[in-house]
């Protein structure tokens, strides 16, 4: 719980972040190439409006962060759950892993790996079993998306493996 009139640095960062996005939007809009012919509403006008809107909201939020913190905050419980950061790191690693590896090791292995990493993140301690479940789960999903939904997915396992 933030005390009265205190500055809340994390919240200030959120406010400043929004202002930064608004500045980037405005700068980007300024550099749009000129349009030819008769233009009723040039391409930069609406982005400027969005930038101004976001900048205004960012300023007000920053003000709140400087004067006691965001108002009416629902979840005041500060601090993370023990082990939560490690869990989130596992999930993040699993997702980065899939993004980098899916073209390399094929669909089933990458998804199985993600399953095992996520399960580890959520507290499972049986990596081999998780990997097996992940692969067993991926096969029907592969079938569902590929045949059922008409989404073409990359090959199950890359040929060179």
């Amino acid at each position: 719980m933030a005390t009265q009139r205190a500055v809340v640095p994390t919240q200030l960062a959120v406010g400043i972040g929004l202002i930064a996005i608004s500045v980037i939007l405005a700068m980007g809009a300024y550099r749009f190439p000129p349009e030819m012919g008769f233009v009723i509403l040039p391409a930069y006008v609406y982005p400027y409006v969005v930038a101004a809107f976001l900048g205004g909201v960012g300023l007000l939020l920053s003000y709140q962060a400087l004067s006691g913190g965001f108002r009416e905050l629902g979840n005041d419980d500060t601090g993370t759950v023990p082990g939560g950061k490690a869990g989130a790191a596992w999930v993040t690693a699993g997702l980065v892993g899939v993004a980098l590896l899916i073209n390399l090791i094929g669909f089933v292995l990458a998804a199985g790996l993600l399953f095992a990493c996520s399960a580890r993140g959520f507290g499972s301690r049986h990596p081999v079993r998780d990997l097996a479940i992940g692969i067993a789960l991926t096969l029907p999903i592969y079938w569902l998306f590929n045949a059922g939904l008409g989404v073409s997915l990359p090959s199950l396992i890359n040929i060179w493996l």
Partner: protein
Amino acid sequence: MDILSSLAMGFSSALTPINLMWGFIGCLLGTAIGVLPGIGPALTVALLLPITAKVDPTGALIMFAGIYYGAQFGGSTTSILLNTPGESSSMVTALEGNLMARNGRAGPALATAAIGSFVAGTIATVLLTLFAPIVARLALNFGPTEYFAILVLSFTTVSAVLGASMLRGFASLGVGLTIGLIGLDSTSGIARYTLGVPELVDGIEVVLVAVGLFAVGEALYSLLYQTEANEGRHRLTSLWMTRADWKRSVPAWLRGTLIGFPFGSIPAGGAEIPTFLSYSTERKLSKYPQEFSANKGEGAIEGVAGPEAANNASATGSLVPLLTLGIPTSATAAILLAAFQNYNLQPGPMLFETSADLVWTLVASLYIGNVILLVLNLPLVGLWVKLLQIPRPYLNAGILVFATIGVYGMRHSSFDLLLMLAIGWGGVLMRRFDFPVAPVIVGMLLGPMAEKQLRNALSIGEGDWTVFLTQPISAFFLALTLLVLVVPHVLHKRGIKLHEDD
């Protein structure tokens, strides 16, 4: 064509085996995800959007609608038995229903929730049948000026009414509008904010944002900040409702429906307000106030019956602005809109003219779906409860695998997966600081529409910006917008807190 014959035509098409099957699958999936924590209708429909490439529009939309209101049915089961609302709009049900379950009355609580949802869903569908064509006929007179004003109104309502703070709602909206800016501008042909990344020229898919926020963001957030609720599950008891239960439930269902439907059908976003309103109404009117949780009672059946009815009625009601104006009032409705657009169908007044058969089949399928859901939920409730035995690691890992496949399947891009992860972390930040998520989705979808309507309105008005105030209908909507900005303040002062519904 009059409504009855249109509806009869809709039924004849909705009752074909293939459409019945889609409806059944939708209801089944909807109930399942409603029961399961961590996965909601917005995410599920987003992940299933690819079927629009293969399945005909009628079948797909019937299924999506089934998921949408099936989730409302399923959500109550988790709330009552576990005290963890599967969907945020069943929070009130958790309050009173869980108390009943704790005192050995889980069965009647589940029964009144399911039957109430059925009653409310059916009445709301009748109201939809009667009112939607009227709204559509009125909306036929709307030009770009009016549409722009309506869009401004929906932006405002979705962001101002949801969540604890209007300012943070607007921040979410701003982020959504920003995401909507990325990509090729259809009028000028200028690629905006693509940062030289070829993947961004087409813009960011709503599926990617929804999956990032609802699947990845939720998973990370629950890891970081939520301790596992371990209150234990309550035993199922006989579903039989006593005569007194019925006598207390029926009026509550009807009141809940009457509160829920209008709130769903105006662009006021979400099922939260009507459920809370219904709850406080029942508390005031009840002859047994001592049974309510606030008075340390044993759980009052009206407190489950009313809000559950309101919840379902508002879900059906939200189809009115979606179908007649093309305006979504919740994240799920926004993704349903995306499904229509995948078929090159633009929901709006013209939909009732050009795709009358589709619209009426969809409406007829709502009647059928309510019956399917009642059958699925009441006798089979024991089966659904078994779903909750899936261990948490596997449930979450499974959701993430589904999410990844859904996003990767769109265009086989590793960049998309990394973007999904980044949006997921953004979602964690938003949850942490209590920013509502729905305005992001609504903003990114409606932002480009607003710009287009603004351009059209200005070209018709020959560049005159005052047209929005001089045209009576558009001025009316803008005045309404102003009202929306003021009313939450008043509600707030009275101590009514609203939360968002995904």
